[in-house]
C-alpha cells in the first residue's frame, strides 16, 4: 500500500474526511483499489486468423476504421442506400442499411473486447476471431 493511500485511510478512520471525500482522494492518487481488477485496455484491432494445412489468412482490421466506415455510411444519399438494400435483399441478405443504429454498433464494437471465437477441426483447420 502506498504512503498516500495509507494516509487517506487513516484520515477516514479518524473521521477527518467523509467516505465520499476518501473515494475522491483515492481516485486522484491514480491507483486501482486492491481486490478490484485493473481496467482492461481498449482493443485496437479485430483479428481474423484462418489456418489450414497450407492456407493461412491473417487479417488485422483497426476498430477505428470500422467506426469511421459506419459514420461515413450516414452520408450515403437516400436513393443510393435504397439501391444497396435492394441489392443485398436480392442476394439473400435481408438487411436494411437505414436501420443501422450507430450507437448500437458502437456498443457492439466495445463488446468485441471480450469476444473470442475459436473453431478447430480434426483435420487441422482452425479459425480464430478476436480483438487485441
Amino acid at each position, binding site marked *: 500500500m502506498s504512503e498516500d493511500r495509507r494516509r487517506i485511510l487513516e484520515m477516514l478512520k479518524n473521521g477527518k474526511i467523509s467516505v465520499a471525500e476518501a473515494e475522491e482522494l483515492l481516485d486522484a492518487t491514480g491507483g486501482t483499489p486492491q481486490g478490484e481488477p485493473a481496467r482492461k485496455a481498449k482493443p*485496437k*484491432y479485430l483479428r481474423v486468423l484462418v489456418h489450414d494445412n*497450407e*492456407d*493461412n*489468412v*491473417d*487479417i*488485422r*482490421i*483497426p476498430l*477505428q*476504421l470500422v*467506426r*469511421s*466506415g459506419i*459514420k*461515413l455510411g450516414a*452520408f450515403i*444519399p437516400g436513393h443510393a442506400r435504397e439501391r444497396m438494400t435492394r441489392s443485398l435483399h436480392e442476394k439473400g441478405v435481408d438487411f436494411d442499411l437505414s436501420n443501422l443504429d450507430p450507437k448500437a454498433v458502437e456498443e457492439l464494437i466495445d463488446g468485441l473486447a471480450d469476444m473470442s471465437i475459436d473453431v478447430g477441426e480434426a483435420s487441422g483447420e482452425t479459425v480464430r476471431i478476436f480483438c487485441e
Partner: protein
Amino acid sequence: MIWPPSILRIRILEKGKGIRLWLPIFLLWPLIGLVVLIAPIFMLASRPITTKAVLFSGPALLVLFCRLRGLRIDVRDGSDQVHIAFI
C-alpha cells in the same frame, strides 16, 4: 492527432516470385488533402444532395483514410502470397 498511413506495402507472390512494393503514400498526402477539400464541391455540382452530406463527407473521408493505418491483410497458400499493409 490522427496521422494517415505513410507507407503501403504490397506483396503479391506466386511460387516465391512476384511483386514487392513499398509505396510512399506520404507523398500523396497533399494531393489527398486537396481532393478531400474539393470533393464536396464536385458532389454539389453533380447531384442534388443535402447540405449536411456536402459539408461533412470530405472530412469523414479523410478520417476514414487516416484510420487505414494498421490495416493488414495477409493471405498465403503454400508459396503464393498476397500481403497488403498500411503502415
